[in-house]
C-alpha cells in the first residue's frame, strides 16, 4: 500500500520557486538573453514536446537516457519532453530556416525536463538559456560563442568565473590511431575520467605515455598550451589542436580577464560533440554553470557551435537579490503616479487603521503617508 501523499509533496528533483527567487530567476534569464540578443542572435521557441526521433538526432543522442517519453494518442508515435534545447534549435536551423542566410545566429530559453538529476545537481526540471551559431567552421565562431558565454555570465554578476576548454574528439582519435578498442579502451577511458595518470603511464607504451602527458598538462592555459604544443600527436588529431590554439589566441583578445584552463581529456557529457568544447565554472560553486561546443546539425550536416547556461546553477552562484523596494499605498493615494516614478506599489483594498503597520505586515519597505513616501524603520 502506498503512503498517503502530503498535498504539498513534489516528486524528487522538482521544486516550487517562491518570491524572491522566482523573480530573481526571471531577471537573470532576461539579462542573459539581452546579452545574447545584443550580439545579433534571434529568439526561436520550439515546443516543449515533440517526436522522440527529432530530439535524439545528432547531438541529441546524449539525451537518450534522460528524456521522458509519452505516447501520442493521435498518431500512436512516441513523443518526448525535451531534456535539452540544442537538438530542437539544430532541427529548426536545418529544416525551417534552411534558406536563411548563414552563419545563422539563434537564441533561446526554455524549461527542460529530465528523467533523473545527477548526484550533484538533483534538479530534474530547470531553465536553459543559450545560443547556437550555425554554418561556420571558423575558429572565430568558437571564440564568439565562448566569449559571449563568458561576457553573459559576468554580466549577470557571476564572480570567480573560469572557462575550461576541452577537446572531446582528441582521445578517440588517439585511441583509433593506435587501434585500441573494446575492454582495453574502456579501461583507459575510466582512468582518463578519474585523471589517474599512473594507470596510463603503467601501460608503458606510446599511447599510455601520450595520454598521461595529456592528463598531466591540464591546467592554466599558458603552461598547458606550451606542453600541448610539443606533443607528437597523430595527424588525425592535428585539426583539434590547431583549432584550440586559434581559439585561445582570439579569446585572449576578447575576454582577457577571464581565466582559461585546458583539459584535453575531458569527455563526460561531450560524447556527441564533434570538436572543441567548453565548460563554465565559478569558484566555490558546485557543478557547472553552463557548457557548449562544436557539433554537427543532424539533418543538414552543417557545422555548428553553441552554449547553454543552466538557470539553477546560475541562481546558486549569485548572491541573493537585493531587497525590492515596495511602497504601500492606502486608499486615496495616487499609486499610478508613484509607478510612473518607478515605484512598485501595493494598494490597500480598503481603509486601514495604521498604514505603517499594514505596510510592514505586507512586506513593504515604504509607505505613502501625508502625500509623501516614507521609509519603514
Amino acid at each position: 500500500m502506498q503512503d498517503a501523499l502530503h498535498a504539498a509533496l513534489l516528486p524528487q528533483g522538482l521544486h516550487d520557486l517562491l518570491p524572491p527567487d522566482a523573480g530573481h530567476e526571471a531577471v537573470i534569464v532576461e539579462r542573459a538573453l539581452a546579452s545574447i540578443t545584443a550580439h545579433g542572435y534571434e529568439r526561436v521557441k520550439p515546443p516543449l514536446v515533440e517526436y522522440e526521433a527529432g530530439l535524439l538526432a545528432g547531438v541529441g543522442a546524449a539525451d537518450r537516457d534522460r528524456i521522458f517519453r509519452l505516447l501520442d494518442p493521435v498518431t500512436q508515435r512516441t513523443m518526448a519532453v525535451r531534456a535539452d534545447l540544442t537538438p530542437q534549435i539544430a532541427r529548426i536551423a536545418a529544416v525551417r530556416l534552411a534558406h536563411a542566410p548563414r552563419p545563422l545566429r539563434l537564441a533561446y530559453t526554455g524549461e527542460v525536463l529530465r528523467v533523473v538529476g545527477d548526484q550533484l545537481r538533483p534538479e530534474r526540471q530547470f531553465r536553459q538559456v543559450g545560443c547556437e551559431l550555425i554554418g561556420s567552421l571558423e575558429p572565430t565562431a568558437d571564440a564568439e560563442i565562448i566569449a559571449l558565454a563568458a561576457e553573459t555570465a559576468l554580466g549577470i554578476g557571476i564572480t570567480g568565473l573560469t572557462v575550461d576548454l576541452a577537446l572531446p574528439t582528441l582521445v578517440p582519435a588517439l585511441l583509433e590511431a593506435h587501434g585500441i578498442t573494446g575492454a582495453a579502451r574502456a579501461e583507459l577511458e575510466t582512468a582518463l575520467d578519474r585523471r589517474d595518470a599512473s594507470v596510463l603511464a603503467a601501460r608503458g607504451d606510446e599511447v599510455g605515455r601520450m595520454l598521461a602527458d595529456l592528463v598531466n598538462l591540464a591546467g592554466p592555459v599558458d603552461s598547458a598550451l606550451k606542453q600541448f604544443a610539443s606533443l607528437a600527436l597523430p595527424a588525425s588529431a592535428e585539426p583539434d589542436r590547431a583549432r584550440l590554439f586559434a581559439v585561445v589566441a582570439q579569446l585572449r583578445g576578447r575576454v582577457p580577464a577571464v581565466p582559461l584552463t585546458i583539459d584535453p581529456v575531458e569527455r563526460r557529457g561531450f560524447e556527441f560533440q564533434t570538436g572543441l568544447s567548453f565548460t563554465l565554472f565559478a569558484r566555490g560553486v558546485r557543478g557547472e554553470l553552463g557548457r557548449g561546443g562544436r557539433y554537427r546539425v543532424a539533418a543538414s550536416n552543417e557545422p555548428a557551435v553553441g552554449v547553454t547556461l543552466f538557470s539553477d546553477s546560475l541562481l546558486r552562484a549569485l548572491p541573493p537579490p537585493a531587497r525590492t523596494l515596495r511602497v504601500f499605498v492606502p486608499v486615496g493615494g495616487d499609486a499610478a503616479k508613484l509607478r510612473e516614478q518607478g515605484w512598485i506599489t501595493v494598494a490597500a483594498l480598503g481603509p486601514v487603521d495604521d498604514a505603517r503597520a499594514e505596510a510592514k505586515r505586507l512586506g513593504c519597505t515604504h509607505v505613502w503617508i501625508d502625500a509623501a513616501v516614507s521609509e519603514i524603520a
Partner: protein
Amino acid sequence: MTPPPNLARGDLIVLAVPKGRILDELRPLLRAVGIEPEAAFDDDESRQLRFKTNLPSLEIIRVRSFDVATFVAFGAAQLGVAGNDVLMEFDYGDLYAPLDLGIGACRLSVAEPSDLSQSDDPSRWSHVRVATKYPNITRKHFAARGVTAECVKLNGAIELAPSLGLCQRIVDLVSSGRTLKDNNMVEVERIADVTSRLIVNRTALKTRPEEIGGWVERFREATARNA
C-alpha cells in the same frame, strides 16, 4: 566554524581524511608535504571533527572513508584521501583521483564459508545473496557474468552475516585475511586491488588550478620519495 579572519570565503582548502587504519599510514605523508595538524588530530579520544594545521589556509576534516568521497564530490572539501573501493562504489563524475598514494593496500574480495567453498559450483548460479558495504560494485561484478546479486547492505561486521544465516557470501575488504579465517571463511574471488588515492574536487581544480594542482604535485613528490 568560520574561516580565519584573514581568509576570504572560498580561499580555505579543506582536506578530508578517513578515520582509522589508513590514517596511521597517511600521517608521515602529511608531514612530508608540510602539513602539521593541531595536537587534537592525533588524539583518538578527541571528539573534534575539524582541525587546524600549521597552514592558515588549510584545514583537515576526519570522516568515515565513504564520506570522504561525498564531501569532496560536493565541494565541501577540495582534497581528500579515499580508497579506490570507495571511488568504484560511488563513481562520482565530479571527482578526480590523480594520484595513487600507495598506502592502505588491501583487496576487495568475495568470500564464503570454508565448507561451502568445497561443494560450490559458481557456474550454476543465477542468483546470489551477498552481504556487503558495496552494493553497487557487487551487483556490477556479478551481473558481468550473468548472475543477479541481491545485496544486503551492512555497514560493518560483514563477516558475521554467513554464520548467522543472513546470507552465504560476502563482498568486503581483505588485508591480512585474519578476520575471514577467524570466521571460518575463505576468499574465493578478488574483485579489485585497493590502495588509497588522493582525490580532488573537479570545480576546485578548474577554478583554483595553481593551488590545488600544487598540492597534487607535492603529494606526488612525497609519494615518489616514499616508494
